[in-house]
């Protein structure tokens, strides 16, 4: 894995060559491309390191969990989130690339929401970070619009047949956040403790929040 000391690698030619002998063809191809792009002045390797660090340590699904927990605790924030998600989410400090135009959709006893991008991998980065591999995979993109209950079963989620499944295919630049139902028997929890119950998958709609006490997602709410 490239780390903060990435730029030093080019200073150690022997180590570099030795390293190459164990690198995969993909690794070599990406390194070759990065070298050309750096030599041409199109990219700054330190900025690449900063980008990777951002999505590995700073921007991820714990952001979205804070948004959902706030909506569970604060009826005014919940209304704002459902009416103008971009502004409500920005008020918690989350905005920008791949989340410029946000819409929050709320699960109810009658409706469960699921988000997909069948055409590529559109995903709300500021609040969920980078999409998981399965979200970008052919099986998810192909099946979730036609067989949403089958896909939910792959995640261990089975919903009553009376619950309508609402699938949002994010085909433009609008990004969707699913606000799950607040778990039962969570009245005594603080907002911060509630955020710990909000899983990434529950914000995509392929999972449900954890129950107080830590039962895994997927069980009935």
């Amino acid at each position, binding site marked *: 894995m490239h780390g903060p000391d990435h730029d030093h690698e080019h200073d150690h030619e022997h180590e570099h060559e030795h390293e190459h002998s164990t690198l995969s063809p993909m*690794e070599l*191809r*990406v*390194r*070759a*491309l990065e070298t*050309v*792009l750096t*030599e*041409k*002045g199109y*990219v*700054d390797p*330190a*900025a690449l390191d*900063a*980008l*990777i660090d*951002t999505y*590995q340590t700073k921007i991820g*699904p714990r952001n979205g969990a804070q948004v959902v927990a706030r909506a569970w605790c604060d009826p005014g924030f919940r209304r704002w989130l459902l009416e103008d998600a971009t502004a409500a989410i920005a008020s918690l400090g989350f*905005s*920008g*690339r791949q989340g*410029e*135009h946000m*819409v929050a959709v709320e699960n109810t006893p009658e409706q469960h929401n699921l988000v997909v991008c*069948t*055409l590529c991998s559109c995903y709300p980065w*500021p609040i969920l*970070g*980078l999409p*998981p*591999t*399965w979200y*970008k*995979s*052919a*099986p998810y*993109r*192909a099946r*979730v*619009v*036609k067989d*949403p209950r089958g896909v939910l079963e*792959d*995640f261990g989620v089975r919903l009553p*047949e*009376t619950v*309508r*499944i*609402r*699938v949002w*295919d994010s*085909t*433009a*630049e*609008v990004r969707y956040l699913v606000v799950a139902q607040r778990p039962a028997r969570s009245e005594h929890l603080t907002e911060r403790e509630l955020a710990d119950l909000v899983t*990434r998958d529950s914000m995509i709609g*392929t999972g449900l929040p954890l129950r107080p006490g830590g039962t895994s997602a997927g069980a009935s709410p």
Partner: protein
Amino acid sequence: MSYRSNADLGGQDGHGAVHPEPESDLFHAPWEPRVLALTVALGATGLWNIDASRAARETLDDYRELSYYQIWLAGLEKLLLQSGAVQANEIIQGRLMQPAVPTRSVLRPDQVAAVLARGSPTARPPVSPARYPLGQWVRTGAVAPQHHTRLPGYARGKRGIIERIHGAHVFADAHAQGLGEQPQWLYTVAFDEKELWGADTPRQHSTVSVDAWEPYLEPA
């Protein structure tokens, strides 16, 4: 040659199970984050826009055989060659052999946080009133155009209802072709499962929506 997207997967049968992963599993090889970062960083050069990059990826001949970050890498190489920013022999040899082309800017580490927080909003002031009100029935165009577009095949020629109106947005079809932004009204259009998949497909009690620009729609 006709335009063909290999990325339009919605509704295809035969793809098998989805394999969930823990939240911490973002990458599966050390080169994957590097490809992600190169893709994001090169956005600052202004050599192409996000719609052109989606078009470059979805028209890769071997799209279906590649992993997602392999698609991104192949798309990046294609865009670099198309824009003249890099020559094929430079990619093969992994070193500079031709002078660089002029670019808008280069992303520096101290700019990363601000650039990501700003993003690239696509909402634009509308130039005309929205043609369709909430609750209006519409029908999507039946024929795919011969260029990048964002109406999935499964939603072509289908009757749906306007459920949300998102204002005017940069029109991906025009933007991808380098024809400017040409903002158009954007709607969420919802379809009943029977309309999409026919009466013979087992009912799931589901509704599917797409986000569709106004030119994709006609009154129904």
